[in-house]
């Protein structure tokens, strides 16, 4: 399992190449923006019938990280479902799969803007979760510290010697870390966009996801 250690509010956190965040001392893993059930929501709203495999693909990758880390606690940082209805209509297979992943683990669903309501799924449902000195919430708040959040689907674009490479990325500075979207059907917001530049300190760094995660200064 490839990861990069960072320190936030004195805690050592490992950013994994998959886009998950691993807090070894607490045996706790964090993923953000799974957007499960996206195909169904798009279809329900009259959009195209996309290949209905995104929930399966996302869960496979999540399961791989759970197996590799042996995490005892899982925090889903919000937008875990593409909307509340998508959570409700998830297939029996996928519900059982999630239940299997939850067995023997503490599981927390943080509310996101896509899934604000209560969800008929095991685990705790919280608006946010303080685990001092860290706080887990969906959308970063200006002025917060020790904050772990998601929502923005950050990605970075890096000009290498031969080509530009664009990938989902963690953004972090001394106050916060923003997780990339973990879901399969998710786009991204580039780190040089105003909202992310404003949120992150000038010395912020980015961890590029991939087989082997890489650290670079956050492209602004």
């Amino acid at each position, binding site marked *: 399992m490839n990861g990069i250690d960072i320190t936030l509010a004195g805690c050592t956190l490992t950013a994994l190449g998959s886009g998950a965040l691993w807090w070894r001392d607490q045996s706790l893993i964090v993923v953000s923006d799974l957007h499960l059930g996206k195909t169904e929501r798009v*279809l329900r709203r009259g959009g*195209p019938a996309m*290949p209905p495999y995104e929930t399966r693909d996302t869960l496979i990758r999540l399961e791989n990280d759970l197996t590799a880390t042996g995490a005892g606690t899982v925090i889903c940082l919000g937008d875990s479902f593409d909307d509340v209805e998508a959570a409700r209509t998830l297939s029996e297979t996928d519900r059982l799969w999630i239940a299997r992943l939850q067995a023997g683990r503490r599981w927390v669903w943080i509310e996101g803007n896509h899934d604000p309501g209560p969800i008929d799924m095991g685990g705790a449902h919280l608006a946010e979760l303080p685990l001092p000195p860290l706080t887990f919430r969906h959308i970063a708040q200006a002025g917060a510290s020790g904050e772990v959040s998601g929502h923005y689907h950050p990605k970075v674009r890096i*000009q290498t*010697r031969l080509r530009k490479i664009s990938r989902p990325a963690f953004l972090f500075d001394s106050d916060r870390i923003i997780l990339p979207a973990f879901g399969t059907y998710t786009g991204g917001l580039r780190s040089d966009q105003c909202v992310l530049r404003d949120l992150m300190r000038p010395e912020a760094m980015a961890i590029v996801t991939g087989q082997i995660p890489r650290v670079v*200064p956050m492209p602004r």
Partner: protein
Amino acid sequence: MRAPAVLPAEISAWFKKRNWHPHPHQLDMLDRGDDPCTLLIAPTGGGKTMAGFLPTLVDLAEAPHTGLHTLYVSPLKALASDIKRNLRNPIEEIGLNIRIEDRTGDTSQTVKKRQRVDPPHILLTTPESLALLTSYEDAPRIFQGLKRVVVDEIHALAENKRGDQLFLALSRLQSLCPDLRRVGLSATVDHPEDIARLLARNPDPCNILYADPGPAPDISMLTTDAPPPWSGGGAAYAIPAVLAQVKAHKTTLIFHNTRAQAEIFFHNLWLANDEGLPIGIHHGSLDRAQREKVEAAMARGDLRAIVCTSSLDLGIDWGDVDLVIQVGAPKNVKRLVQRIGRANHRYNAPSKALLVPANRWEVVECVNALEAVRAGELDGDPLPQGSLDVLCQHILLTAAAGPFEATALFDEVTGVGAYSRLSRAEFDACLDFCATGGYALKAYDRWQKLQQRADGLWQLRDPRAAARIRMNAGTIQDSDTLKVQLKRNRSGKPLGEVEEAFAATLAKGDTFLIGGQIVRYEGLRDMTVQVSRNAARKPRVAVFSGTKFATSTQLSQRTLRFLQAETWPSLPSHTADWLRLQRDISRMPEPGRLLVETFPRDGRENICVYGFAGRNAQQTLGLLLTKRMEDLGLAPMGFVASDYATLIWGLDEVVAPKDLFDLTMLRDGLESWLAGNALMKRTFRASATITGLIERNTPGARKSGRQATFSSDILYDTLLKYDPEHLLLKITRTEALRGLVDFSRIEAMMLAVGDRIDHSRAPHVTPLAAPLLLEVGKVPVQSGSAEERLLAEEEAALMQDSGLARVNV
């Protein structure tokens, strides 16, 4: 034998008054006016339009008609408005009470609505607009009474998806109006019967009429004092000679094979244009307003020359063009002949054309193209089967018009020539795709797009989906382009467009050519490329998406035969000497055999394969051979392809080249190479858009191109992983193989060659291989881990620069 048709008195009076006589083929068309299907092959300027419309005018002169009588479809919007002008004059002069209107993407919503309620007698339109028109619930009423459909420049629609779309729409019309008569107007083509098969309802017969082709064109190669260079496509060496020709003629069209070449040539022409002759440029990446300005200036006769690309290929009437210059080898004899037709738009006057080879190999190709024209030999590939992605779109558009019966639609579709061999299973797969997405995992059936009712008819589950389907119809892919505009001139007119991918490579201060001027990149603002004028002499060149033509199979084979001659009296001495030297140092490539040369140079080993299969196929061959070489441990480092050969370089000498050419291995290599290839992803995106899986337009906002790129790649990866047999992946494979990769030409070449592979080991670079060393577009061979290594390098460098060698913040 039927009685010849008689012109009504007012029409023959009009001909007499103008002192004109109808051309024989125009009267022939009138005679055949009642036949279900007629194709007219006529050279440009042969009175084609009148021939197509004469039966309509006669009909309408003889008896009043309510509603739509004749539908005219052309591949170009500009052509539709051009025809409107050209028809109005005779109609007014004859005094006929006929309403003519056009309907294209440019027509306002108000007019479009009115046309549906109160259609004109003659409606001029494009395949896209026609397809949309057939998708309305009131289509039966709109087309009520329609008698004739005229498809202009049908040859330009025969080989692409727009043609598929058009002929499917015609099959719809034919069901609405069973007596509909079809007329096709075509430039000279190689296989008229293929076009006739497309035009007619299968298996109906189709008349083919030929207009007098007129006198043979006066066509030759431009000779210059300076010999052309060994490589490249700019033809800068010929600028003074071309300028002299422009001066000696009234109006000259200067054709180029690519937009980028047209831009460079235009720029160089201006630098040499001491007398300030009025010269314009016209190509598909320029802003529409700017193109229209050039077209208008041209029609007024204000311009002495226009540098252009295929955007001027189709039959717009440009008035007094008396010379056509083709810069670069024409690659394809048929296109050359059609281009020559642009000169001398007067019937029965010979067209005058000059070929300007851009490099020494093109001298050989030009000489052979000229001989092919003189021999009347046109080239062309058999017409492909209709595309299934367009069929899916057609099914959706049909559903938008109202409930339909699957078997009736299947029968209608197989009545289209290009779909006559479509199997019911293929059709059902397309229908299932439209209805449910066609996935192996039957997930959200309650939301399926199309439902089968109790009475067996199919209909849209949600009728509101119709608007969304129409909004996303069409087969032309806008590659993601950005407008280019002068900075501080935001209200001003855009200069044109560049591809998003090109814009992404620009850094502030970079210069590039657009519309013949050099501009400096200033930045990106609201999805518009901001530029300023710049007087730099050497610009970076805009990479336009214009198709790179490959030399046709027929022209390649003719050239290959030509090389077998003892001497080449038709070639200039510099080129003949070059070929002779090839024979002395190595050997000549031969038909039915494959010449492979190996030679060392600059500490690297080279292998040159003379497949004569055209640029695209040679490029693919390069990819496949380097992959084979990698598997065999031969450490290839890169390759470059031209129309006749592929040159590969690497660390090790290839001692037994025959081992590389195992067709089965190459095909396997192609399959696995394709799956992960950017080309497949691009093709997938095109097909996914045509079938409606990716929506370009949604009722709310317009998706930016970048987002579309992103999600379609993920969709492709997901399908490949979980549903590799899905219809859309099958379509993508078929399209990629036939369109861009040209693997069929490699296969045909390999089958013709068998084991007759000649290996020639030379002590140094050979004459025929030398130009390849100068060729642009060298492709480095990268191992799969290249991206990871690049990122690692960059990580180290950036961390070093930022002084943040430690990770903890």
